[in-house]
């Protein structure tokens, strides 16, 4: 029973030992109930031949946190296997199902791998031009037409329909139509509302990981995280460990790949995503201590009841220095 219609619900079968099967089936039922839009996409099937079959990996021992294998039957008859990490977290299972649905539904546009390569190439061009832009916008052309203007510094996307595409749709479109990115005008189009491009960049970054770190990342010295990569929340568990590592000590793309925290593709995907979404501080030199670089601050500049943003930066810099100076 394989679905070939584009929008018919996909069947999912659970081929696990009884004690696991009950749990996974219950999780699936609940996910489908709680996520109305998902229930249109999926139904749990007991048929031997489903669109997706969940199995234990062959070397599975007694580890309760082990991953699951999802065997996919593509509409064209091809087979693919995906690993679902941490399937016992409902969020992770949900994310995996969404990913699988996208894969199966857009299967006609070429294999997932080829499209991830496109994501990588696109981001490389983006990150190169971002360095040269100096206030100018980037012009994205597809099929010869300018489809969007992008502000690499502020992370904005201006397009006629004012909607940011989903990464899967986007790479599918990139694969279908040829594209180019060039430097364009400096002023944003007056009638278009800017939309944050970061969600798209993040997804592309994550997908690009199998093709390695972006050149802009390799050229960097140390990597230190800036802000909180919200976009990483809910990703693989290794993201949390990577974030923790990137907050302390000196790290490079290579050292993180070697750290064994996660597969190289996942590490590079995470780093690429952080890079293009501007989650890294500027260059960090090798011997840099954990204390952030001091910013000179004139004494006693905080007059007035309301703190101004500029002053606030100086205040924060001063608190940082004072806290670190006070380290016993």
């Amino acid at each position, binding site marked *: 029973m394989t679905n070939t219609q584009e929008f018919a619900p996909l069947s999912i079968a659970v081929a696990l030992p009884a004690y696991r099967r009950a749990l996974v089936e219950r999780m699936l039922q609940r996910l489908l109930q709680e996520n109305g839009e998902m229930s249109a996409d999926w139904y749990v099937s007991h048929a031997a031949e489903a669109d997706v079959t969940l199995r234990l990996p062959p070397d599975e021992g007694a580890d309760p946190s082990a991953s699951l294998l999802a065997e996919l039957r593509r509409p064209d008859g091809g087979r693919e296997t995906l690993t679902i990490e941490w399937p016992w*977290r409902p*969020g*992770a299972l*949900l*994310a995996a199902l969404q990913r699988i649905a996208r894969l199966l539904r857009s299967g006609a546009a070429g294999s997932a791998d080829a499209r991830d390569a496109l994501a990588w190439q696109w981001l490389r061009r983006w990150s190169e031009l971002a360095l040269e832009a100096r206030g100018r916008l980037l012009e994205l052309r597809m099929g010869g037409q300018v489809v969007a203007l992008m*502000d690499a*510094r*502020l*992370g*904005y996307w201006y397009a006629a329909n004012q*909607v*940011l595409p989903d990464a899967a749709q986007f790479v599918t479109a990139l694969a279908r139509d040829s594209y180019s990115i060039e430097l364009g005008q400096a002023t*944003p189009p007056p009638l278009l*509302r*800017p*939309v*944050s491009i*970061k*969600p798209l960049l*993040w997804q592309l970054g994550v997908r690009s990981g199998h093709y390695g770190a972006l050149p802009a990342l390799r050229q960097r010295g140390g990597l230190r995280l*800036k*802000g*909180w990569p*919200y*976009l*990483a*929340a*809910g*990703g693989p568990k290794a993201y*949390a460990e990577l974030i923790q590592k990137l907050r302390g000590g000196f790290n490079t793309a290579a050292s993180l790949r070697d750290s064994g925290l996660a597969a190289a593709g996942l590490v590079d995907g995470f780093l690429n995503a952080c890079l293009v979404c501007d989650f890294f501080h500027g260059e960090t030199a090798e011997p840099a201590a954990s204390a952030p670089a001091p910013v000179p*601050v*004139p*004494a*006693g*500049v*905080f*007059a*007035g*009841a*309301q*703190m101004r*943003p500029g002053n*606030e*930066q*100086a*205040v*924060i810099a*001063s*608190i*940082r*220095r*004072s*806290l*670190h*100076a*006070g*380290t*016993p």
Partner: protein
Amino acid sequence: MSEIKLLFAGPMGAGKTTAIRAISEIEPISTEVENTDFSESDKAETTVAMDYGELTLDSGDKLRLYGSPGQKRFEFMWPLLAQGALGVVVLLDNSRPEPLADLEDFLSAFSGLIEAGRVVVAVGRLETHPQPGLDDYLASVSRRGQFLPVIGADVRRRDDVVGMLELLFEQIESTASTAAAAVAAGAAGDDEWLQFVQRARAQ
């Protein structure tokens, strides 16, 4: 001279006074009285108005550190103390009966500051009480359509306290730069962005 202050909030017994002591250069001034509510905590004394500590900055200014009383009946003090604060650290205690309900109380109380990127949540006693996990906290935050960092911390360690302030500052800076950029570009709103974050958080 304007006031530079940080607020440590959180339920009774989460370590607000301890966190202030970790970085204050004076012995914290407290308004502790006898605790008569042993259903809330078995501590002998509890803060009812505020804790107060100070740190002299190299600019000559004083950083004022406030701790708010934890019990929900004192929630009238929370906005008073948060007024004009650079940011708020919400300390939670995973060994309490319902830490996620505590989280809800503080998320409601500080929702304005959360939107401004001025709140971080630090969860204590995760080693001895691993449930709920940080994922559960993040899920609660995202269900409210809010987002803020949630980390594990042990306030008895000064490094942890400094670490959570560092996280708060990074958060303030990155929000400020995003806001400035939005003003510069005349952005009307970022709904897609918020929705995406919510979806990402839901995973």
